[in-house]
């Protein structure tokens, strides 16, 4: 007997996006649509807390209603909520011809991400992934009057398409080998042709790394972040990565990652390359968004360390790190959006402590958190990941982590240093410092407080993340295709 669950949040987000569509087709009104989007997201967040309503007997298992899915789903919804709050009154919602769709696409992206976190079947995962990717594509290209937005969207479209195709090819190979479409790395010990199955797993992994923008599949990220608007850049850098990482953790939850195998080796190499490559890439950047792209790649590498350290700490530290990363990165983007929306060149940030002390202080808090210095939450997150790595004896990964964090310190601190020092003579900045909207200012304040408070009192979040269970996809009999 198999059960199928439909997570509440997926249901709420589906219905919510329909409501938003209906509202837009009735009459365009951007403020109403933004509020509607917030309501849908809040309702989805609330529904995650409730027990699953829709359980069907004997149907194909598509979603696993476990605590990991709830945690990652809640994180995704919260991050999108923050992005909605920061993009209200931005350049995007000022364009009256398309602004309402912006919020619709945000809801759809959330839907895709939340579906991915709980997926235990290839089809539900793939539908989630494509919903997320296609909404992201629309969002990246949103400022259709800007040339580089189109370029970024094109790049994303091509590479995302290649990644999806790679992944689907991997699914096909795995299906050919095992006859199963369940979303989980197959057990190939009994397989007649293990090489085909292994190839399939590697292709799936490669596709995931493309979307996660891990080195060496990272080249699109910097261009996309640079080309698109700030809130969407936050969405690409945070939300889609949470969704992908959550799904990837579930995919490998039934595999013993201690045993060396082709996929473990691939993840190991990618983790090392991402940590070093991301940080080295960020060091040489002069554009803040490209710098954050490098930082984001490096953080994916750190997350992979937790990923490769199964055991009591592995999942918990990954969950904690995801939360810490999301808070701080969204914080950085929110400050960028609120204070210096045009100032993507880091030289424009010279003397921000004089011009906007509160924003500069909040920015420093976020950067300290990303760098992993106490008392910010990033410190505890990094500590937790190192604890996981030590308990799993990942010596090589830990040394690379330490080396690359030290490189990382350099560029985070250099940014603080730039904000503290006035611009050199003759190189005065031309970007105007704007006052953030009240909503954005409140968002920044909340995120900065969360960064510090969670850093000083991490026990609530630790408790939450320690209780997380990743249910492996049911090893049931090969699912029959309808």
């Amino acid at each position, binding site marked *: 007997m198999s059960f199928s669950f439909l997570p509440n949040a997926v249901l709420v987000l589906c219905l919510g996006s329909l409501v938003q569509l209906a509202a837009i087709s009735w009459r365009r009104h951007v403020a109403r649509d933004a509020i509607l989007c917030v309501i849908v997201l809040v309702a989805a967040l609330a529904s995650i807390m409730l027990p699953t309503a829709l359980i069907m007997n004997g149907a194909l298992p598509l979603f696993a209603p476990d605590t990991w899915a709830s945690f990652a789903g809640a994180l995704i919804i919260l991050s999108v909520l923050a992005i909605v709050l920061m993009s209200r009154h931005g350049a995007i919602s000022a364009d009256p011809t398309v602004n309402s769709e912006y919020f619709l696409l945000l809801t759809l992206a959330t839907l895709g991400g939340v579906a991915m976190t709980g997926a235990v079947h290839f089809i539900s995962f793939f539908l989630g992934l494509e919903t997320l990717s296609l909404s992201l594509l629309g969002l990246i290209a949103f400022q259709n009057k800007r040339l580089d937005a189109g370029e970024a969207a094109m790049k994303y479209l091509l590479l995302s398409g290649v990644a999806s195709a790679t992944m689907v090819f991997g699914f096909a190979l795995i299906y050919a080998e095992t006859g199963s479409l369940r979303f989980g790395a197959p057990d190939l010990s009994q397989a007649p042709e293990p090489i085909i199955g292994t190839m399939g797993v590697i292709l799936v992994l490669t596709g995931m790394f493309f979307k996660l923008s891990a080195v060496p599949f990272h080249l699109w990220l910097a261009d996309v972040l640079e080309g698109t608007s700030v809130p969407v850049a936050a969405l690409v850098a945070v939300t889609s990565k949470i969704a992908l990482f959550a799904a990837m953790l579930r995919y490998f939850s039934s595999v013993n990652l201690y045993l060396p195998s082709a996929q473990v080796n691939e993840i190991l190499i990618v983790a090392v390359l991402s940590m070093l490559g991301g940080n080295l890439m960020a060091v040489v950047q002069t554009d803040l968004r490209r710098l954050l792209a490098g930082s984001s790649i490096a953080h994916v590498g750190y997350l992979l360390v937790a990923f490769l350290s199964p055991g009591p700490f592995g999942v918990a530290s990954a969950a904690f790190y995801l939360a810490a990363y999301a808070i701080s990165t969204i914080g950085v983007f929110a400050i960028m959006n609120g204070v210096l929306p045009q100032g993507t060149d880091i030289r424009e940030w010279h003397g921000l402590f004089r011009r906007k002390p509160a924003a500069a202080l909040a920015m420093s808090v976020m950067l*300290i958190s990303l760098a992993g*210095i*106490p*008392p910010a939450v990033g*410190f505890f997150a990094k*500590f937790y990941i*190192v*604890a996981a790595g*030590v*308990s799993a004896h990942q010596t090589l990964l*830990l040394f690379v982590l*330490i*080396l690359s*964090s*030290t490189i990382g*310190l*350099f560029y985070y*601190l*250099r940014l*603080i*240093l730039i904000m*503290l*020092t006035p611009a050199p003579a003759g190189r005065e900045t031309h970007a105007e410092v704007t006052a953030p909207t009240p909503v954005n200012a409140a968002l920044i304040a909340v995120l900065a407080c969360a960064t510090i408070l969670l850093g000083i*009192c*991490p*026990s609530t979040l*630790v*408790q939450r993340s*320690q209780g997380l269970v990743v249910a492996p996809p049911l090893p049931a009999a090969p699912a029959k295709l309808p």
Partner: protein
Amino acid sequence: MMMFALPALVLIPFIGGLAAWLVGLRGASRAAWVSSLITLVLMVVLLAQITISSFAAGAGAGGWFAHFSMAWVPMLGINVRFDLDGLSLVMLWLNALIALPCALLSARNVADRAGLFHCLLLATVAGINGVFMATDLFLFFFFWELMLLPLFGLILIWGDAGRQRAVLKFFLFTQGSGLLMLLAILGLVIVNAQRTGVITFDYFALSQTAMIAPIAPVLMLGFFIAFAVKLPMVPFHAWLPDTYAASPAAVSILLSGVLAKTGGYGLIRFVVMLFPGPAAHLAPIAMTLGVVGILYCAWLAVAQDDIKRLIAYSSISHLGFILLGVFSGTRIGMEGAIAQMVAHGLSTGALFVIAGLLEERLGTRDMSKMGGLWPAMPQFSALAMFFAAASLGLPGLGNFVGEFLVLMGTWQVSHVMTFFAAAGLVLSSVYSLTMMLRVFYGPKKTESLAPLGAPSVPHIAVLGVAALLLLALGVYPQPVLNLSVPASPHVVSIAQEQAQ
């Protein structure tokens, strides 16, 4: 009351710092300065109270005076745990004694954003206090990293030319080595968890595992490198001269006076006491590096023109004695190392006060442009002579006691090393006396240096008090030596009972 005294030592400077910042926001730099001073005086009063009640109660098991424990992240066995022994007490006093003049003397130098300056200064002091008391390894690491951040701001905002490079170097060195220590801490915790089934960061509980774990040498190395960078020991000293030279005067005093001693304190508390066996194996290497540091940096100091750099190199050279004493494995060497920490904190701190005043009055730190200052400021020059003599190890002053005891301890282990380390003292006479000669004697180099004016009363007072303390330490060091014996970690049951 005693229960909360230890966390109060950390909280008072933090809160006082915030108060100073808030007061400073209104624009009056004087007010921030006053509130900073009040905070530090409060801290000293509290410390005195702790000292008195500690003496009244007497040392508990293994030499621990006071305890504080509170759950922090219970799921991971992390507690807010402070314990106080004689060594901590001496170090806390040193911190208080150095912090007070830092705040006192910065009234004039720091007019710009004084509130922020005092806030960061007090936050550093609070972090250092935490380092000297924490006996939960996570908490220790937390404070260890936390004290760097305000220093970063202090040097960056109020520092001299070249500060951006210096501060990044300082931060990367110390933070990178700190991460190695984090690895070692976690390694120890995990090994302990595998042995006992309990995840804990408690110093006392972990000391059992540290004794017997097969990978103890590797773990110890992680701690050792972090402390050796902070001290600094010779191959890791590259950050120090630049940082000291680029720091504002008050921060140079704090860095050389106390911050370097956190490295020495860590070596005693977390390397020698926690891993006695592996530390004994490491001792020949550590002592050799100590001797190399003494000679090499003394040699470099002789060649400096910049007075702050000269003091910085001399500081590394003297810190070599701490390394030598701590790793000599003898009780007398350890006593000498601790006496040297206190005496070096006072004398180098005082030398940086002098350098700061000279820089303020003359507008330069280049000794080739100074000269003939004695007639212009006789009192001040006499005090400078006193501290130069202390630094070169004149008998009767604190540094002599420290260095002599260290050399006696080393003699029992290795005659060759004693010989070379003692040769370092000759070099230290060379650079100390050369410095005196170039700055205070001889003809005046330039006429523009004429209007010097008398040093302010606070300067003379601070230097006078430091001189008296050094003299007391030199003449009658026994109370400090008796008090500062580090307490053993192997008192698990008793210490835990008392904490509860």
